[in-house]
């Protein structure tokens, strides 16, 4: 072995570091999708083509989802703070609220897409829209499952100040989900 260091390792905030790297890969995935979306959209508009049919994408459902995700970011921060303060009751309430808001966002999105009558094979724009929004739904669903796991740990009394890293790691991932949705909101629902 080349130069090795024999001293014992320390593991500062290992879970948070791993979550940061993992969340980074998810952000790069969405970064790739957004880059393709905006590139193809810019080309289509430059050639005078219609991107979405008139009235297909409405601002209100997207705005409601954005508000839901923004509220969930606040409740997630509340959960982190509660765990830091060893406040188990508030931690449980905050995590449960965050998960419910995530589920509400998934529900609103599914309802909206069943309602708009824009089939996935209607155009390039529709295909990309479904891929981006569908991927984000998966991201939120994973976050909700993670929060469910944390809730179980909290019920078991494990989410204390000493075990805060798992909550911080989940929070990092959740904030990224909110950030990704904000790009969807501005880039797709507002800019159309």
């Amino acid at each position: 072995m080349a130069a090795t260091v024999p001293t014992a390792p320390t593991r500062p905030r290992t879970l948070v570091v791993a979550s940061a790297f993992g969340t980074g890969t998810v952000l790069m995935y969405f970064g790739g999708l957004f880059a393709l979306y905006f590139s193809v959209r810019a080309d289509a508009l430059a050639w005078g083509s219609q991107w979405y049919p008139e009235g297909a994408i409405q601002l209100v459902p997207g705005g409601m989802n954005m508000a839901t995700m923004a509220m969930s970011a606040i409740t997630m921060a509340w959960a982190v703070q509660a765990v830091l303060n060893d406040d188990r009751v508030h931690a449980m309430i905050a995590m449960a609220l965050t998960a419910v808001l995530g589920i509400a966002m998934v529900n609103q999105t599914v309802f909206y897409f069943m309602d708009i009558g824009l089939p996935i094979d209607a155009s390039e724009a529709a295909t990309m829209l479904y891929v981006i929004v569908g991927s984000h739904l998966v991201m939120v669903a994973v976050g909700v499952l993670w929060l469910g796991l944390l809730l179980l740990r909290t019920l078991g009394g494990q989410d204390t100040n000493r075990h805060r890293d798992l909550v911080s790691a989940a929070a990092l991932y959740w904030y990224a989900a909110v950030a990704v949705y904000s790009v969807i909101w501005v880039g797709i629902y507002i800019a159309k």
Partner: protein
Amino acid sequence: MTTTDTAAASDPSPTALEEAVTSTDPNTLSRVWGFGGMTSVLLGAIAGLLVGFERLDLASADVFSSADEVFQFWSAHRVALVLLGVLPALMGLATTVVPRQCGGSLLFPRAAALACWTWLIGAGMTIAGFLADGGLGTPGGAGQRQATALTLMGLLLVIGGLLLASVCVMTTIVSGRAAGTGLRDLPFTAWTTLVAATVWTGMLPVLAANAVLAYVDLRGRPAIRYGAEDAIWEQLSWMFTHPAIYVLALPALGIALDVLARATGVTQSNRDVLLVATAAFGFLSFGAFAQTFFDTPGTPIREEALSVVAAFAIVPVALAILGGVADTLRRGASNLGSKPPADAVVALLAVLLVVVGTVVGAVHVIAPLELLGTAVEGANFTLVVGAAVLGVGAGFHHWGDDIVGPGARPGLFLLGGLALALGVVLSGVTDLISGLLDQNDFTGVTLAAAGHPESGVDALNLVSMVGSLAAVAGLVVWMIAGTLHMVTARKDAA
């Protein structure tokens, strides 16, 4: 002693398969990554050899029945070498060598095991997809759509496994290294793995985004655009060409620096310069932006300033690293003796091929030469990926005793390494000349598709095919050497 303890004590020891499937031991995972990766490298080289046979007579399809079949094997050659071969093999070294270099142990070993098996299952699905007439699309659109979907799904699992393993390794380096050890103190293998893994976690998700888009468009109905059979490869091809392939060679450079320092018994002078140079090499390898499929009409991305500058900027960086290697060899030459260690020889060849590969990469973006899409791209791929394979091989030989136990075969390893290097040079140089004579990177099976005006590249293609044959022979020798090593180590352990 409890009942459970008694029962456990009476159990027979696990078989090699049981141990491999259930273990979270980094050494075991490293063996799975390494053996699986090098097997894929061999399969990829064989696919390349078959395409080389076909290229010998461009007037008719002799080995394959159609241009679509040639294309499937040609693309399988690249996918097998990059995503199923070199990257996993590097992950094998990263799983076991890097944590030790950091003075700790691999963090999240169960996640690392999940990553390893996800990759292996994905690799199996990808190969099955290619063999079932799928692959990553075909120019004629004559492939099986279901098999193409299987290939894409396999590719996504492969990417997922590689990403999860990268996260484990990066976290180990950043958060799990010994107290008091700064990033500047890391050995070069660990350092270059950190840089390369950072770039992988930047590029592989983008490749996944491309694959998901193609998969969603492919399934269940006629494709709109992204899932069309003749469009899938072009969306994914950026991962298998300049500049993205350079990142495969980066850990090979780190391995070479460590191996040569050990062989010569001297530490590198100007260590900080080498750290910066290797980091720059990694970040100049970021290639997710170079997606020709999404070119704006009239402004092809590979002719834009960013691509061209990156292609030229990496050459002096590679030369700086070569300078560091040369300086180490100069100062430690007296310690090498008349018979330098086999791993040092192979590692040095890897560094030289990386430098040549970057020069070829810079030449092929010079607009007036019009070399984009020609066999020069194939030469660039062969030289860089060949260098990466040599570097990985040197790493496995150098740390082989730590991974599987004693029993290395240096003579056999050197023989295989020299054959592989010879094959890479022959294929690379002849493809470079063929490209300068206008032969296309993908030649198809007709003179018209090959893109050359019957200007005597047939002889060059023959030499290139001989090079491919030498490379396959070298890899077979390595597989034999590795298998003998593992058998000897197992016998010794028993």
